[in-house]
Every structure is written in structure tokens, then in C-alpha cells.
């Protein structure tokens, strides 16, 4: 067995793995006794295998890559440092809901199911400049009614009612159909929707031509007072 046969044929590995037949083994031994390189190769491989056996016998050979740290894990939620403040905050929320929020909602629900009289103001003759400014006195956090007279006109396919607060800010806008405009239109103004002072309700007519802007018809003013 010459050197190239040993190298190309993995003779060192076969020798260590017991894969050489008797004759091949004899030939290889005869070779490595006279070949520095193969003797060193065999010596190195033997030391490696001996040490590898020891390393492979260890319970955990490879250090596993550190798992990506989660933002939080379930066990961490149970730690006192997190759990105690979280429980305290939760109790506060539950207490607030039971003492404040739920009773108020129950009260509002009870009120909504009962008949009651809402404060109202009738808005007619808006085109009259000298018309007296009507006053409506509403309770805090409660709605009130506007009874609006809309001057009907066949040119319009509908009407827009826009409420402006005393500061000039549009509070809401409501579309009214011509059939509804035949009579005085009652409009409930939601609680806390606007402010105390002189509010303005602008009534506009919508033409069939969708591209043309609504035309102002009448502008009602009323004074809102909150008790």
C-alpha cells in the first residue's frame, strides 16, 4: 500500500473504524510504520476519537442558541412584581365601574325607558329680522327639542339643518326630506352637543342638481341656557 492509496482510500479512517480487511490492515501498518505523515495522521485521529468519546459522553454537548427573548412570557405574569400592581389596578377599575359607571348607566337606561317632558323651543318666522330670540332652558347633560318650521319650496329635493354653536362652530347637520318638512319638524338636540349662549340653526335647500351648493333658506337663532 503506497501513500496515495492510503490518502485517497481513507485508510486511516477505515483503520480506526475497523473497516480494513486483515491483508489491508497489515499493508497499512507496514506503511505507517515507515511514513511520517500517515503515522502523524493516525496518531492525531486516534487522539481526536479518544477525546471525542469523552465529549460526546457529556449530557449536553452543544450549547443551544439562546432562544429569542419574548416580550413577556406567561410565567412572568405571575411574578409578584408584576402581578400585585396589576391586580391592584384591576381592583380599582372594577370598583370604579361598580360604584360610578354602572349606576350611571343604569340610571340613564331607566330614564330612557320612562316618559318625560323635554324642554323645547319653537323656531318659526326666522326670516323676520326683528323676531324675538327664543330661549330654551335645558338641564345639564340632558337633551332638548327644537320645533323647526321649514319653509317648503318645490325647487328643493330636500333640506339641511345645521346647528352652529355661539362660537360659530358647526355642531351637527341633519337632512330632512320634503315630506317631513310639510309640518313643524321636531329635532332632538343631544345632551352636551352645544354650548350655552346664542346658537344658530341654518336651514338650507338642496336642489336636484347635485353639483350646485345648498341654498340658504332661513337662519334661526335661539338662546340656550343650562341649569
Amino acid at each position: 500500500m503506497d501513500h496515495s492509496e492510503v490518502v485517497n482510500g481513507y485508510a486511516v479512517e477505515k483503520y480506526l473504524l475497523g473497516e480494513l480487511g486483515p491483508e489491508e490492515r497489515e499493508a497499512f501498518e507496514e506503511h505507517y510504520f515507515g511514513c511520517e505523515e500517515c503515522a502523524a495522521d493516525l496518531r492525531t485521529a486516534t487522539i481526536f476519537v479518544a477525546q471525542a468519546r469523552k465529549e460526546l459522553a457529556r449530557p449536553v454537548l452543544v450549547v443551544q442558541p439562546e432562544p429569542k427573548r419574548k416580550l413577556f412570557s406567561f410565567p412572568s405574569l405571575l411574578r409578584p412584581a408584576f402581578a400585585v400592581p396589576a391586580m391592584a389596578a384591576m381592583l380599582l377599575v372594577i370598583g370604579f365601574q361598580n360604584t360610578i359607571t354602572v349606576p350611571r348607566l343604569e340610571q340613564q337606561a331607566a330614564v330612557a325607558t320612562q316618559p318625560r317632558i323635554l324642554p323645547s323651543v319653537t323656531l318659526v318666522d326666522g326670516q323676520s329680522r326683528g323676531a324675538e330670540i327664543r330661549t330654551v332652558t335645558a338641564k345639564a347633560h340632558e337633551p332638548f327639542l327644537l320645533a323647526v318650521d321649514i319653509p317648503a319650496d318645490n325647487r328643493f329635493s330636500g333640506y339641511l339643518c345645521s346647528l352652529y354653536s355661539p362660537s360659530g362652530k358647526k355642531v351637527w347637520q341633519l337632512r330632512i326630506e320634503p315630506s317631513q318638512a310639510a309640518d313643524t319638524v321636531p329635532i332632538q338636540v343631544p345632551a352636551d352637543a352645544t354650548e350655552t349662549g346664542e346658537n344658530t340653526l341654518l336651514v338650507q335647500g338642496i336642489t336636484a342638481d347635485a353639483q350646485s351648493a345648498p341654498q340658504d333658506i332661513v337662519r334661526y337663532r335661539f338662546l340656550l341656557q343650562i341649569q
Partner: protein
Amino acid sequence: MQFQKFDDAYLDSLCKGDRRTEEHFVQYFSELIHLKLRSRLNSRDAIEDVRQETFARIFVLLRGKEGVRNASALGALVNSICNHVLLEYYRSHSKSEGMEDASEIDIQSQDTDVLDTMVSKDTQKTVRQILEKLSDRDRQLLKRIFLEERDKDEVCAEFGVDREYLRVLLHRAKLSFKSFYVKHMASSGSSGSGRGNFSRYVWLFSALFC
């Protein structure tokens, strides 16, 4: 261990009984004899007996009238005499198993205790790193073969590889370790006295494999 060229000068020094040359000769071939005999003899004492008898005969031959003329054939001569001594040992001990029945080199488990204290930390670390770079499958493959000593064909079938894969795997690991080992031995040789390191190395090798 530093290899010295087995030339005429070396052979001449050996025949004349130069102490350093004799030391080198004995230590160098002791390693190879140990590697050879491990697969054939189970007893450390038996290995030592054959080794000593081999060298005794070689030195008789070297110092005899005819001597040894071909320096390049020294290795073959040692191997040949070792084979003869081994055969005589088998006959004298009525061994039923012949050389053909021997298996691969088997590092006995008790050697691991020796390894604990003898193998350098660097060697351990290097082998560990080499193994860590292997895939889990390859590590398990080596573990089955070398640690659990399971049947190689069964293991290869279990992992869906052939014997060639196993050879190449061992070959690559060996090359990785060898590159470290050569540097390590070279630095050991240059950092201290050659004789001290030489003796330490021989002692280490003997402790591991004798």
C-alpha cells in the same frame, strides 16, 4: 513528537548506541506499536510485553554483526519484528482469536479517567468546538459509533447514510483537529526545552494509549 529522518546518519547513530537517537527511536515506534497492538491485545501488560520484546530483538539486530543496512526500511523492520513477536505471544498464550479477528482500535473506557488529567484544556476545547460545529445528526452519528459502539451498518441505516459518509465525516473532523494539533505541538516545542516537551508528550501519549 518531532520526526527525524531515518537516514544513514540516524541508523549509524542508532547502531553505535547514541542515547538520544535511541530514545527517539524507542519513543517514536512505541507509539506506533501501541496503536497497532491495541486492536490485537486486550491487556496493557501484554502490549507492554510485546513492545519490550520487539525492541529487544531490534537492538540485538542493530548491534549484531550483520546489522541493518537500509535506513529507510527501519519502520518496516520494526513492524515486521513486532508481527513476529505478536505471533509468538499468541502461540504461547494459546490465543484462540487470531489477528484477523481484531476489531478497530478501541480506546478503553478507563482511559477517559486518564484523559481528564492528561489532555490539555486546549485539546478538550478544540475537540469540543469541532463537535459543536457538526450538525446534530453528525454528532449523534459519531456518538452511536464511538461512544455507544453500535453496529456501524445499523447506525448508518438509521441515519440514512452510507459508510463512505462516516469515513468522510471522521476524515474532516480529523483534519480540523490536526490543524490545531500541529500548531499546538509546534508551539509546545518552541516554548520550552525540546527534551522536556518531548518527554511530556511521550508520557501523555503513553498514558492515553498504553
